[in-house]
């Protein structure tokens, strides 16, 4: 149990990936920290920036080196590892009732995003869901109505083919492959097809029927020509340069897409497509904040920081400045918070709509979770881009990877 | 075999005039040695003949055909380099056969010719070795073989023996001479070693500062050097030079009062400064009796070479070396030396040309005393 209050000045470290790159993310984060320090004069926050794919290694390395890690912003794929191996503090134990009190006003799935075996280790922080970015100019050129973006994968296929054939540009591309992505776009698509997940407990299930069918669907798009076959490392560039009609990717890049579109093409936004009438399962990308402090006073300071970072005030900054989703939907219609901003940025609504159906990203457990994830993603990519039977490819990979999972 | 005609050939490197208007005729089958100090342009001249260096002006003809613009290999020359320049990555056989290979001769023929050359030079058992596995003399022979293999009309040698030790040098020198005797290939041989030059040459060309100082048979050049440079350059220990002045009667006066060769009269104005020169071996020991024909010799240092003694000393203040055969005892100092007037050379200080004295009339001799 953490200390009741902070009476002495204390310094806590805060590992954060928004700080690692220039731009609004960094500015907003620094602003948050400044505001927090202002509100808690006894707490000094030492921010440590590391790129999002490095931040976990940094946390681990610092722990190995014996440095104090207090609060860390980690991506959801590392959730189980952080809880089981790195020793993240279960917030129920540390903060007791305060957690439940603070969680009031979160989206329904809010706390669940950071849960492992019934305890909350990560407090969902900045996150977003996949949305479909639309190049309205290409839609028009292809004779499609940009105001009626495709709602199902069938429609994506038709629209994609039309764009590819009529404009000579690319139809559709999901940011689900390649080195820069996590697996959340892929998981979103998979889970939208009936709710099956990529694993069940410690059994891998990504090659099961529904899951494999979803991938086979992408493959079908590919074979039909609707799915672009481009350099998977440069999909954003392709969209930004006006060569891609539909781009399914995290809403966090909205800002960047907007400024890139300016003067080049008209940008549209749509929710992610569904499998027929099945509801979509938008999965969160982004991160949660974890507490690693052992010392009660530091734990208190850490908790205060975490609370602040997920407060109404914080989300107003986070959403309006960076573009991440607000975990507290209440602020959307609140004059004091986001109402005004949303009126100016109506596009953002497509993103907000998905919050109700928010489905937690599935992380893998055990010491080899990264390897397993790698194998899964490689198999999925090969299933879509390769020439073999997608189901077989996934099956083979699943069998390969299963032994690396923890024994049940 | 071929003759070479070099006509007013010059070569400049940037501003350096390396070869300065050379005219030279090398007869078919001759062995010409070009001798000169370092940097005098010997190599440059040779390389122009070979075609390795462009000719700045003048022309070179081989067998009366001007070859100025011909590729080296087309001139029918073969060359032996100072460091042999054997291809380090090829075996002896490949080194020798390379020229044949390049000219597209079939393997069988090639091997046969290489084998023939190798046996001439006693290299047969070495054919599979790399140059790094050979001794100096063997390398030299391989270089010779490489030059011989195409049966060129002309052999060019650029100090091919200078990297060998004394004994090997003599041996290889004799071998080259023997080969020339057999093959009679026109040869031009560059060296700065005068023993090599003397012993090998049919015709000896002494170069200095890009020009030819003298050309002729070795004994002619040795015995009648046309300039002080040539006189000084040939012979070891070198000639001794005694500064002298012409007196009123055309006689050469040394050190103000010595007139050792009164019978020699120079047709030069009074006061002209000349140098009288003689070879160390031409001097004989004479008693120091004040006879005018003998020069008082102040001995400073004796060297015993086993076969002869070198005596270093001073004559009228000038350093002079004389050689005495090993058998003779070194005389007790002080003594004098006498040199026969035929063995005496004279050169003008100005310009260094040889000046020939006329013999004085018998009366004059009588007046001054008889020559030794």
């Amino acid at each position, binding site marked *: 149990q953490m200390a009741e209050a902070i009476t002495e000045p204390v310094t806590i470290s805060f590992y954060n990936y928004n700080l690692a790159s220039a731009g609004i993310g960094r500015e907003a984060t620094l602003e948050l920290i400044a505001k927090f320090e202002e509100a808690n004069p006894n707490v000094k926050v030492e921010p440590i920036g590391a790129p999002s794919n490095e931040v976990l290694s940094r946390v681990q390395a610092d722990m190995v080196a014996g440095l104090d890690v207090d609060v860390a912003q980690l991506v959801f794929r590392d959730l189980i590892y952080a809880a089981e191996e790195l020793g993240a503090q279960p917030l129920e134990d540390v903060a007791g009732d305060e957690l439940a009190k603070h969680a009031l006003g979160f989206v329904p799935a809010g706390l669940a995003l950071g849960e492992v075996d019934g305890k909350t280790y990560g407090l969902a922080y900045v996150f977003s869901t996949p949305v479909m970015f639309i190049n309205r100019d290409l839609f028009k050129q292809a004779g499609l109505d940009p105001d009626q973006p495709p709602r199902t994968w069938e429609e994506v296929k038709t629209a994609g083919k039309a764009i590819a054939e009529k404009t000579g540009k690319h139809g559709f591309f999901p940011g689900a492959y390649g080195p820069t992505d996590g697996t959340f776009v892929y998981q979103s698509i998979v889970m939208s097809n009936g709710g099956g997940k990529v694993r069940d407990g410690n059994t891998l299930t990504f090659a099961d029927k529904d899951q494999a069918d979803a991938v086979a669907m992408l493959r079908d798009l590919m074979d039909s020509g609707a799915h672009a076959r481009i350099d998977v490392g440069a999909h954003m560039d392709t969209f930004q340069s006006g060569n891609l009609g539909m781009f399914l990717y995290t809403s966090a890049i909205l800002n960047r897409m907007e400024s890139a579109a300016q003067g080049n093409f008209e940008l549209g936004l749509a929710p992610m497509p569904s499998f027929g009438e099945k509801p979509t399962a938008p999965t969160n990308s982004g991160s949660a904040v974890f507490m690693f402090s052992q010392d009660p006073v530091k734990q208190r300071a850490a908790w205060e920081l975490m609370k602040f970072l997920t407060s109404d005030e914080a989300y107003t900054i986070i959403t309006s400045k960076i573009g991440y989703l607000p975990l507290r939907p209440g602020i959307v219609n609140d004059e004091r918070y986001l109402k005004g901003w949303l009126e100016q940025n109506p596009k953002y609504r497509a993103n907000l709509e998905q919050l109700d159906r928010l489905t937690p990203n599935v992380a893998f457990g055990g010491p080899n979770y990264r390897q397993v994830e790698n194998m899964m993603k490689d198999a999925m990519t090969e299933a879509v881009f390769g020439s073999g039977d997608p189901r077989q490819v996934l099956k083979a990979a699943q069998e390969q990877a299963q032994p690396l999972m923890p024994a049940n | 075999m071929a003759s070479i005609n070099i006509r007013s050939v010059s070569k400049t490197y940037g501003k350096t005039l390396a070869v300065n208007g050379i005219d030279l005729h090398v007869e078919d089958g001759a062995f010409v040695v070009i001798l000169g100090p370092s940097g005098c342009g010997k190599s440059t001249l040779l390389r122009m003949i070979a075609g390795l260096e462009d000719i700045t002006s003048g022309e070179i003809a081989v067998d009366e055909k001007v070859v100025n613009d011909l590729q080296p290999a087309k001139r029918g020359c073969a060359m032996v380099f100072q460091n042999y320049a054997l291809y380090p990555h090829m075996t002896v056989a490949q080194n020798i056969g390379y020229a044949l290979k*390049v000219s597209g001769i079939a393997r069988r023929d090639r091997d046969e010719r290489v084998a023939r050359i190798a046996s001439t030079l006693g290299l047969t058992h070495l054919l599979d070795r790399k140059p790094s596995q050979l001794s100096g003399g063997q390398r030299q022979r391989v270089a010779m073989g490489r030059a011989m293999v195409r049966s060129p009309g002309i052999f060019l040698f650029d100090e091919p023996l200078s990297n060998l030790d004394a004994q090997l040098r003599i041996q290889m020198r004799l071998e080259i001479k023997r080969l020339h005797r057999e093959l009679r290939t026109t040869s031009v041989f560059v060296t700065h070693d005068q023993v090599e030059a003397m012993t090998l040459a049919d015709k000896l060309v002494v170069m200095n500062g890009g020009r030819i100082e003298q050309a002729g048979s070795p004994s002619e050049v040795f015995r009648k050097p046309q300039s002080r440079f040539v006189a000084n350059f040939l012979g070891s220990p070198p000639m001794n030079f005694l500064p002298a002045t012409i007196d009123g009667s055309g006689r050469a006066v040394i050190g103000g009062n010595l007139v050792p060769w009164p019978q020699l009269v120079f047709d030069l104005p009074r006061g002209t400064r000349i140098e009288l020169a003689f070879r160390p071996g031409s001097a004989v020991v004479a008693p120091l009796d004040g006879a005018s024909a003998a020069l008082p010799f102040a001995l400073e240092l004796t060297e015993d070479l086993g076969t002869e003694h070198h005596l270093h000393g001073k004559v009228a203040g000038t350093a002079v070396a004389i050689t005495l055969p090993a058998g003779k005892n070194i005389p007790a100092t002080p003594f004098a030396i006498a040199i026969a007037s035929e063995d005496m050379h004279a050169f003008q200080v100005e310009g260094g040309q040889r000046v020939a004295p006329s013999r004085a009339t018998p009366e004059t001799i009588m007046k001054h005393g008889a020559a030794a």
Partner: protein
Amino acid sequence: MSHTAIATSMPIATPRLPRITLRAFEPWLYLAPALAVLIVWTYVPLLEAFELSFYQWNMLPRSQPRYVGFDNYLNLLNLPDMQQAVINTVLYTVGLLPLSVGVPLVVALLTAQLTGPARNLYRGLIFVPMIVAPIVAAIVWRWLLNEDHGLANQWLRSFGFDTIGFLRDPDVALWTLVWITGWKLIGFSTLLFAAADSAINPSYIEAARMDGATSWQIVRDIRVPLLSPTILLLSLMTVLFGAQWSFVYINALTGGGPLRSTTNVYYLMWEYGFKTMSAGWSTAAGMLVFLVFGLVALVCLALMKKLAVYDD
């Protein structure tokens, strides 16, 4: 001349033993800084790594290492992409050789016949890629080679060719990475070759000219054989470090894709070993790389000794 200076400067002989030991010690004093750095920062960790490679552990003090024998090694060697990665590694090496050895050799020989400032200018310009940061090189090349907005493909289009998916097409991507890797090396190798070429004793070339060899024959029969030490050295470096050199570009550009076509052993080791949180995997990967390339190095060195022609 006085000899007192010497007499006085001759010290009394110091006792024999300490001097000997001091002298034996001397070279180690000079080696100490370099060796200390290498031992502390390379070899001690390497030894630790060797030990760790038999454990499953994430190095955190709160968890216990678990001995797993050769499991980590086996896991790595049994990775689905291992075979592909090995083949690709060979392809990278084979593909890099023309760029790290072939082209530079040709360039050095070509520029050797040029004179004056042009020669140095060319050699200077061609060295520029060497000083460009790898990450920058990767980004700019990705851009230039993009199928949709890249200059290279635009030019291809304007000349009526089909576009090429330089980083997209599994048949091409590896060669694209080879090119980018090689692009950085050409200048460096060229300088080395130029240096070696200018050190060739000109009399060999003159001898060959006298033998009637054409300039092509001189290149083939004389200059290239005499450059063999440099050729072999650069080949050795390419074989040993080609995988590492291309790593940056795989990491930045393709992540081993498309369809595993660009992954190589080093990248695979990184992906499954170094990048992950498991000390066992990463140290096993490290040991594998070290041992395999160490062996390759020994074999290559032995080969080099046999093949190279040293002119001394």
